[in-house]
């Protein structure tokens, strides 16, 4: 045992001593001197200009949040509670003062990830990279930079910078840091010391070191549904059925449903969807749910013993033919109410 210990110490000295001379100040357990702090400062300032240029203010109705542009197509990562309902109009205010039109894409309620797309991205859009690894969270204790707009847009002030460290991971989609955040920061980027986005500001509680950010792993996991929210919303037909030896028997057709609009009636026996045989009532649900709202399908059915083919335009359960209904622009009121709570 003693032997082992000595060997272990020798091993540590061999490995740690040469390394300690080389590791950057921000990878130490804690900075040890003014020189270390200056090294940290130099690293932060070497990436900060780019980080700040790509950080934007998002305005919708009376509320505002933050976001970060991550590609030339104008994709903005933000918080789900900032982007809100897919399809709604968003004004994207750049750090240089330009105001661009945008549209909310998807939002994930669970992790609070969200996206906005700049409608006509100009060529000289400032962008930053984001962490695209699918399963790697930042390291505990890792230094990071938070940028955002606490309290909303302030042209003279610009974005506000904070430097802090990763404290822990309250759940698999959340990073907690001691970079202090406030309402209006929501949706803003958390960067590592290479200026790569590693999180998106999401929520806080009263303790000053409880600042939470959506992890990039959460964005990766939900990517498809965020980019194209309709891809995640199942289609809906609107019939109650039971199994029948010839197919599935319609017991009831819901009012205002796609089935009703297409003329499907009670006592029809549904047999095929787009030439695919319906095995039973559960199978019908699965088949329908595999389509997106807005898809037109051919339903083959028996009515009074005669075969009939009806075309149905499927919708989402709440009635839209698309999950991103470009309804009228947001009214101001609910947003105004939210203004102060928009964290």
């Amino acid at each position, binding site marked *: 045992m003693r032997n082992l210990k000595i060997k272990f110490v020798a091993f540590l000295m061999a490995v740690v001593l040469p390394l300690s001379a080389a590791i950057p100040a921000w990878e130490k*357990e*804690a*900075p*040890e*001197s*003014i020189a*270390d*702090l*200056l090294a*940290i*400062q130099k690293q*932060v*300032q070497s990436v*900060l200009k780019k980080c*700040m240029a790509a950080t934007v203010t998002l305005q919708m109705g009376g509320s505002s949040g933050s976001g970060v542009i991550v590609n030339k197509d104008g994709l903005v990562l933000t918080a789900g509670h900032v982007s809100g309902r897919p399809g709604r109009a968003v004004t994207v205010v750049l750090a240089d003062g330009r105001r661009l039109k945008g549209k909310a894409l998807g939002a994930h309620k669970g992790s609070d990830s969200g996206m906005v797309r700049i409608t006509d991205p100009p060529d000289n859009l400032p962008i930053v990279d984001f962490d695209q690894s699918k399963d790697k969270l930042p390291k*505990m*204790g890792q230094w990071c*930079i938070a940028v955002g707009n*606490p*309290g909303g847009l302030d042209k*003279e*002030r*610009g*974005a*506000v*910078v*904070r*430097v*802090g*460290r*990763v*404290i*822990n991971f309250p759940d698999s989609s959340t990073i*907690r840091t*001691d970079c*202090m*955040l*406030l*309402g*209006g*920061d929501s949706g803003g980027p958390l960067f590592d010391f290479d200026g790569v986005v590693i999180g998106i500001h999401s929520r*806080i509680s*009263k303790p*000053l*070191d409880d600042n939470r950010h959506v992890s990039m792993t959460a964005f990766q996991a939900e990517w498809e549904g965020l980019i194209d929210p309709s891809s995640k919303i199942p289609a809906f037909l609107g019939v109650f059925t039971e199994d029948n030896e010839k197919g599935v028997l319609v017991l009831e057709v819901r009012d205002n449903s796609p089935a009703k609009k297409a003329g499907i009636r009670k006592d029809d026996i549904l047999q095929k969807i787009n030439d695919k045989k319906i095995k039973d009532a559960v199978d019908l649900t699965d088949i329908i749910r595999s389509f997106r709202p807005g898809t037109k399908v051919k339903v083959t059915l028996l009515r009074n013993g005669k075969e009939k083919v009806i075309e149905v335009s499927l919708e989402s359960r709440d009635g839209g033919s698309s999950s991103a209904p470009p309804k009228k622009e947001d009214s101001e009121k609910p947003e105004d109410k939210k203004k*102060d*709570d928009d*964290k």
Partner: protein
Amino acid sequence: MKKTLIAALLLSAWLAPAASQLKREFRTDGKAVQAAFAEAAKAAKNCTVRVFNGSKMVLGTVVSKDGLVVAKNSEFSTVKPGLVRVMGPGMRIARARVVARDIPHDLIILDLGREVDPGYEWGDSEDLAHGTWLVAATADNPPKVGVRGGVFSANAREIKKAGGVIGVILGGRDGKSFGGVQVTEVAKGGPAEKAGVEKNDVIYAIDGKEVFERAKMIEIVKSNDPGTTITVSLKRGDKKMDIEITLGYRNLVFAELKNRNDRMSGTVSVRRTGFERIIQHEISLGKSDMGGPLFDLEGKLVGINIAKSNRVEFFAIPVEDIRQVLEDKADEISKARGE
């Protein structure tokens, strides 16, 4: 037995990372990290004083060898000249005299009546950029002077005045035909209540000028600083009366109407607006740390902390402006000192 114990230990070691957190000492405000600022912090110990005003305590900064101290004026609105007590480095509690005030920068200038070597050099606030480390004095561990580091965090700029309030809600009728603006609520303990304004009073003039529109009236009142006294003319039934009201700070008068950002920020500075030019940092300070010095990593003074705006935004008056105020007030200070 031994084997199971080892297995159990291994298991706990395996489980630990998932539940573990960065130890407090390694967090940005933790001991281990803050220890790196120690060298830059030395300057703070020689020039930071505690200033007592009744039961209130705030920080002050020694700004000259002949014993002048600068602190946050709005924390001393009720003090009588000569009644401030100060405790500083190597000093017992002693009296200090108020020798000047500068409202635009919210500074009060005190005279310690003795020579003190502040032990720092003037810095240059124009050299600061986003991400530059700064060090501020804190009142955390009396009687010691604490320090805390954080970065320069936003553009230097003017902070516009928020203006004073009388503490009423004008939620009722207004307009020329109505003949004024109706008071629907009077904030408890606010300036209007203290002056005798009642619910359903109809205000029709401010400082002798008739105003019948709600928005216009709010604008006129707001154009005055807190602490200003205005004359409000109102009708109560058949009676007409003129009432003098001294304006208060919105966040104090309407404390219960705090927005979410203020609720999340703990106690903020009463006066946190109306500064010609401030520099902003993220050093997590309390309201009573205002008046304390702000240094760069070389230990040069770059500003004096003036307001905690919220939990993220802290303002300091740049050192250049402090020096200008001392120059501008030189005659007034000499006079007060009886020189």
